[in-house]
């Protein structure tokens, strides 16, 4: 069995356990009652754009918003490793 639960540190202050087999990274942030930014929740508006400081993510749907180096769109990705992000 491959590992699906990863440690995600958000804004340097919240540490969450995120199960990559259950919903998107954004949904995980919401489930942990963190304040989240989003509009479309489908990868095309860019409103959820966050900074990936370490780790890697996998996209569930092809993101259409521009992703600059070091950016991720948590509404359509899941962690692939432990992560540190700014949202």
């Amino acid at each position, binding site marked *: 069995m491959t590992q699906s639960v990863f440690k995600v540190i958000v804004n340097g202050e919240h540490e969450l356990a995120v199960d990559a087999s259950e919903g998107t990274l954004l949904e995980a942030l919401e489930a942990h009652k963190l304040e989240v*930014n*989003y*509009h*479309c929740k489908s990868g*095309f*508006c*860019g*409103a959820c754009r966050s900074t990936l400081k370490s780790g890697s993510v996998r996209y569930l749907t092809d993101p259409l*918003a*521009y992703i600059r180096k070091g950016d991720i769109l948590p509404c359509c990705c899941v962690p692939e490793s432990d992560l540190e992000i700014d949202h």
Partner: protein
Amino acid sequence: MSYSTFNQAQINPLNEPMYFGNSVNVARYDQQKHSIFEKLIEKQISFFWRPEEVDVSRDRVDFNKLTTSEKHVFISNLKYQTLLDSIQGRSPNIALLPIVSLPELETWIETWSFFETIHSRSYTHILRNLFSDPSEVFEDIVINEQIKMRANDISQYYDNLIFYTQLWQTHGEGEVEVDGEIYNVTMRELKKKLFLCINSVNALEAIRFYVSFACTFAFAERELMEGNAKIIRLIARDENVHLTSTQHMINLWQYGEDDPEMKEIAEELRDDAYEIFMTAVKQEKQWAHYLFKDGSMIGLNESMLCQYVEYIANLRMQAIGFDAPFPEQRSNPLPWMNKYLVSDNVQVAPQEAEISSYLVGQIDSSVDASDLGDFDL
């Protein structure tokens, strides 16, 4: 450089920049320089909708119950949106099609503009339902000082680019005299006008609609004007696709993934781009002030709206590589907005205004023979 509707030169569109290269000849999409525009076309077309399919008939009753100041908010916003979509329904075509060099981008521009015309038609649909004669509302758009001020700011960048492109098409590069004025037409100057124009459109798609969206959804939160809210939801979803396209153009330029000269220009005009955006922010706050001049509405006032403008301005500016201009406004002052902006919210009951998925005639493709069992002709 006169424009030809079918450039006969053999060109490889994979080596062309987005704009000011060779004009497009064969409309082919099997290969793409910037495949994102092809994906945006597909996304946008998948969102096709018809205003007439949204039932706005109940809004008439609601409208008559609104206070005078709420009516002012509602109608003024519709006027402003009508202006914005009037401009957007034509300007990307007129300004950008003559200078575009990639087939997928050319088609994106046409698709984009076409959807803006759907938005325009939806305002007529909404207004016809509210007034037996909506002429007065439409006619005020070219008289109303508040709206004219914004119209001028938006259209000047398009108009400038269009004018210089026309000079270039008829006279080529060099000095041209028109009505006693000398214009120096150079490729550099044309590209600068293009850069400013796209930044102005980006600001339009990014924030100019949101004060009005917020008012619409604030009415919907009170279960008022829900037909209108359904339409605005569909419009907001489209605008997000448009916004992504202008952000892509700006970022492709500034990160050196397209025309190298545009990268230089993006650096050179960075402050101007910033100013264009911040002017739009200022104007939207003034608009909020104008809307609530006779009183606010339940759940929304001028200062909340201004905070919301700052909040989304932060998101939009960061998307094109600027620091957040309002670091003190990191959190969303109108969190209920989000549920109306979600592209599809399938968990909630379909009769509610925040759902768009059921609005357009959906076809159930999983019909099998047994479903038609006792179906006789």
